[in-house]
């Protein structure tokens, strides 16, 4: 049914994903954990590729491996008291319980669903075209209005973010943080 390459790719990618995900628990350094999380996201993207979901794969890399992980890095860097230590937490017990419950639901569902209905003949009968081409044509054809409105919205959200962090008493364009940085620098030299 599937070519050998796809099967090998599936096992290799799954191994990478699962091992990285498990190692996140064992690492003490939060930044290292984030790097491994990126590896998990990349492995997931590879799995999507083996399923012919090319658009989701690219979106996974752009959004999760790119944007979301940078967000995590920023959160860790900007939180002064969360020293990079992924230490023991009061919530370890409840967290394990909750995680275990969710994992149990996934496992039960996975065994409960009759997957074979959705593979083989039924799957092969559906013709897969390039999803990226279809999505691109849809976005810039019938849904061009929504696309443009969303881009205007994002542009002005960016503008708003800049306006909000600019110090009103200081119109030359430096942000409040930079100003604060200058102050501390001056304080340090005194």
């Amino acid at each position, binding site marked *: 049914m599937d070519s050998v390459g796809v099967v090998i790719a599936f096992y290799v990618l799954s191994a990478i994903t699962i091992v990285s995900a498990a190692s996140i628990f064992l690492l003490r350094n939060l930044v290292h954990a984030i790097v491994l999380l990126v590896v998990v996201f990349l492995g997931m993207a590879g799995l999507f590729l083996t399923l012919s979901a090319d658009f989701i794969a690219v979106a996974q890399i752009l959004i999760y491996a790119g944007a979301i992980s940078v967000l995590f890095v920023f959160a860790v860097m900007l939180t002064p008291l969360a020293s990079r230590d992924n230490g023991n937490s009061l919530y370890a017990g409840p967290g394990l319980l909750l995680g275990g419950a969710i994992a149990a639901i996934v496992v039960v569902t996975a065994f409960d669903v009759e997957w074979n209905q959705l593979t083989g003949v039924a799957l092969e009968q559906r013709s897969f075209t390039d999803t990226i081409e279809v999505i691109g044509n849809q976005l810039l*054809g019938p849904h*061009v*209005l*929504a696309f443009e409105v969303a881009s205007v*919205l994002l542009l002005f959200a960016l*503008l*708003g973010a800049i306006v909000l962090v600019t110090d009103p008493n200081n119109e030359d364009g430096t942000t409040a943080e930079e100003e604060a940085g200058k102050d501390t620098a001056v304080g340090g030299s005194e």
Partner: protein
Amino acid sequence: MTDLLGNDLNLQYELLGPEIALVITAALVLFADAFRRELKIGQSAIPAISILGLVVALLLSLLWIDENKDFARLVTIDNFTTFFRVLFIAVTVVVIIGSHEYIERRVSHLGEFYSLLLLSTVGAMLMAGARDLLTAYLAIEVMSFSLYILVSLAKSDTRSGEASLKYVLLGGVASAMLLYGLSFLYGVGGSTQYTEIAAALSDGTSTLELPLLLGLALIIAGLGFKASAVPFHMWTPDAYEGAPIPITAYLSATSKAATFALLLRWFAGPLLPAIDSWQWMISVLAVLTMVIGNLVALQQSNIKRLLAYSSIGQVGFMLMAIVTISDQTGSALLLHLSGYIITNLAVFMGVIAFYNRTGREEIVAFRGLAQTNPYLALVITAGLFSLAGMPLLAGFLTKFILFQSVVSGGYTWLVVTALLASTVSLYYYLQVIRQMYMYQPEGDASRWRLSPTGYLATGAMLVGVVWVGVYAAPFYTAADRAIAPLFT
């Protein structure tokens, strides 16, 4: 061009002329502000460019009177859309003319201020025109995002940042609820197009009662927030108090009208077949809103907070029209909405002119205004009396027609509650008028005059309040023609 389902699509970009013109103007305003020194233009050029763009957009929207077309099955251009386009453009023009002095003095980031104002007008116009759930949602976000930022732009007023933060956090929650509700509606209706949801719901074969009910509750909660209906009104007084006053005026006019445009489109269109599921929800909301809004307004000492609660009370009256939705109540609602907006803008333009002079916004600060500036006292009094529903002013006639249409819709008990709430409202409006006429001015008692644009804005609104109150026939015809496409 056709879409994935094989429907023919009409991609006639002229249909979106007003929106495109306003977005281009917003970009121009930004650039003009950034390169003001190089271009050698003064500060007042920026509002001038904005108004020019708005006038162009107004002319472009008048091209489509009595048309009924859609753009790519996403936006309808009919009389309803045209009505709201004209209304929103007019509100923005009045706000800019009436408050450019205030803005120059007390608002930071001029270019961004005007371009965001124009952009939120675009969002409001698309809300009135959308015929697809996702387009409507995007339009709501365009309007709200601009307003979140605008609220925070008052210079050297710490309340402004607080107001903006509250508004953005609660607004985010409301948007999430709305979107979740829309996803249920999509699940039940099988499409994001209004027409197809209506067809699916009126089919009667759907067995998805519970998801529909859940979806409706979430949608009503989300929109209730945008319209500031009780119990989703908590952000309103704080946002109104902290925002720059022109934005408070804009919030109470455009943001509210756009939400009601959307409510009318949804509840007269895709959701009409499910009327039994949502009628009671909206009537509960209407009663709570008019009672609590008007009662809490009694205790306010700040004019902006007073007007915030009074606008909440007004929302309760307007929600009654949604409960008994028909072409008759629909056109009464459009008429009341325009009357309310003209009246509210009259009050706000007066308050802005007062604030420009005194920098105070407590109600006691209005003491003796009838002596120091009788004209301004007259404008504010006319506005407040109209809000309370006095005869010969806009508020009386539009409220009368609204209440009458709700009674003929069979909801007399709602109207009785509304009349009681309306009587209560007279008391707190009179409190402000009493301060102006019955007391001696404190401190500086010399006469003062408004600026020319101040006279223009307040004068136009005063004329509007009286005109709608005395001779409303043109407005009534316009409202009638605007509501017709929704009920054919």
